[in-house]
C-alpha cells in the first residue's frame, strides 16, 4: 500500500502534470508519440523545441503551416501530414495545459 502511494507520487513528480492524469486517453497517447523528439510531456532537451505550455492556437497554426509547407522544416511536414486538424486541436489542448 505504502509503496504504491510512493510510486504514484514519484510518477506525479516525474511526469509533472495535471494534464496527464485527467486528459482524454486518445489525446494523451497521440501527444505521447511526440515525446521521443520533443521530450517527455513536451519538455525537450536540446535543439528540438519544447511543446509544453505552447499556446493552443499557435500550436495548431504551426501544424497547418508545416503541412502546407509555409513553415519550412526538416521533419515536421511528414508528421503534420499524418494527422487531421481535429487531432492538431486535440494535441494543442493537451500541450497547452502542461506547465
Amino acid at each position, binding site marked *: 500500500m505504502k*509503496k*504504491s502511494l510512493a*510510486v*504514484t507520487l*514519484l*510518477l506525479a513528480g*516525474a*511526469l509533472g502534470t495535471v494534464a*496527464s492524469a485527467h486528459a482524454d*486517453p*486518445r489525446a*494523451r*497517447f*497521440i501527444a*505521447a*508519440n*511526440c*515525446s*521521443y*523528439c*520533443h*521530450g*517527455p510531456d513536451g*519538455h*525537450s*532537451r*536540446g*535543439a*528540438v523545441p519544447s511543446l509544453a505550455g505552447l499556446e493552443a492556437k499557435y500550436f495548431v497554426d504551426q501544424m497547418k503551416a508545416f*503541412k502546407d509547407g509555409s513553415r519550412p522544416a*526538416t*521533419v515536421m*511536414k*511528414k*508528421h503534420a*501530414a*499524418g*494527422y487531421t486538424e481535429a*487531432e492538431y486541436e486535440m494535441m494543442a489542448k493537451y500541450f497547452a495545459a502542461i506547465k
Partner: protein
Amino acid sequence: MTINRRDFIKASAGAAGVAAVGNLAGCATYYSGNYAPKVVVVGAGFGGSTFAKYMKAWYPKAQVTVIEPNDHFTSCPFSNTVLAGINTMADIELPYSHISKLVDAWVKDTVTAIDNKKQTVTTAGGKTFAYDRLVLAGGIELLFDKVQGYDAEAQKTVKHAWKASADQTGALRKQLEEMPDGGTFVMSVPKAPYRCPPGPYERASMVASYFKKAKPKSKIIVLDGNPDIASKKGLFLAAWKKHFGYGTDNSMIDYRPNNMPRAVDAKKMMVGTEFDDVKGDVINVVPPMRAAAITGMAGVRTGNDGTWCPVSYQTFESTVVPNIHILGDSALTNFPKSGSVANNTGKMCAYALSEMFNGRPVDPAPVVTNTCYSGTGMGTAFHVATVFRWDGEKKAMVPPKDANGVSGEESELEMAYMESWAANVWADTLALPADYKFTAKG
C-alpha cells in the same frame, strides 16, 4: 483488514483469460477500474522500459514487474559513434535507477521458462512470477549457427556489435583502434528484416569518418545480403560520395550487394560469401536474426516461418496466445525495427491495456509515428519519418499521403536534432530527470 483486492480479483479471474482476447463489451463489471492486474514485462530496452513507465502512468493500479538482466541501459542508437571515436561507451550507457523506482518490482534476472497456460514466468534465479498480462520486449536473437564457423570460440574475437555493450561495441572499437593504417575492415549486413535498417550503412559511414582522419589508407568492405542499400539509400550514397570518395578509384567504401556471409573463419580472419573469401584485419559479422528467445519460450514466435511474432495492431497482443503482448523488434509488423518504434509501440500497448483495464473498448484506429536519424560521422545527419494510421479496409497500418519520407539532404542542423532526439528518447524511455546530464554528441 479488508479483503485483499488481489485475491478477490483472482477468484473471479477465470473469465479474464478467455474474455480478454476478443470483444470486451461484456466485461464492464469485471474490469471496473479497481482491477489491479499483474503485468510482467520482460526486457527493459526502448520497448519494455517505455511500456512500464506509461503503464504505471496511465493505469497506476497495474502491478508492474520488470525482469531485466543488465544492470544499466546501453543504447544501440548512437553506438556507431563509439566505433567512430566520437563518443565513448560511457556516453551511451544510462541508468535504470529512475525507471526502476516507477514500477512495483524491478528484478535483475534472466527468464528461463514461460508457461503460457499457467501464465507464469520462471527465472534463472529460481523465482516464478504469475501474470495476468505478459509483455515480451526482448528484442532480437542472433542466429550464429546460420553462419558456418561463427561458434562460441569465433565469437570471442569476431564481434557483431548488434546489441550494444562494452563487450561488443567497446571491443570492436578497440579492434579498429589497433588496426594499422592501410588495413581492411570487413563488415556485413543481414537480409531484411533485421534490427535497425539504416544501422549498417551508418556504421560504414562512421568507421569511414574515423579512418579518413586517423588511417586514411584503410578500406571498408561492406558485404550486404540484400540486393541494395536497405534504408535511406540516396542519402547514404550522397554522403559516401561527398565525404569518402565513393564512385572514384579512391573510394574508402567498397559496397557489395547480394554478398551474404555464409561462413566466418576467425583464425584466418576471413568472411566467406557464395562468391569468394574476403580477408580483413578487423571483421564484423552481423548474423541473421529473429525475435528474442523468450518469444519462442512463450510460443508466440510463429510468423514468417517462426522468426517473428504476429500481433494485433490495436493492442500488440499475440494473435496466437492470449494475454501475451510483444513490443519492438520482436513483433511482426510493417514498422521498421527502430528504437523510436519500440518506444512508441510500448506506449500503444500501455494505452490499449489501460483502456481494457478500465473496461473501455480499445482504440480501433491507432496512429503511431517513427522518426529515425542516422549520422554520417562528419557532423551531419539525416532522417526518415513516417506516420502510420490504421486503414480499416486494408487492415494494415499505412502512412497517409505525404506522411512518409526522408531528408532532402544531410545537414548540421539535422545532427543537432539527432542529438536532441537521443537525449529526449532516452529521457522518455528511462524516465530520466530534467537535469540529467547527457554527454553524447554527434
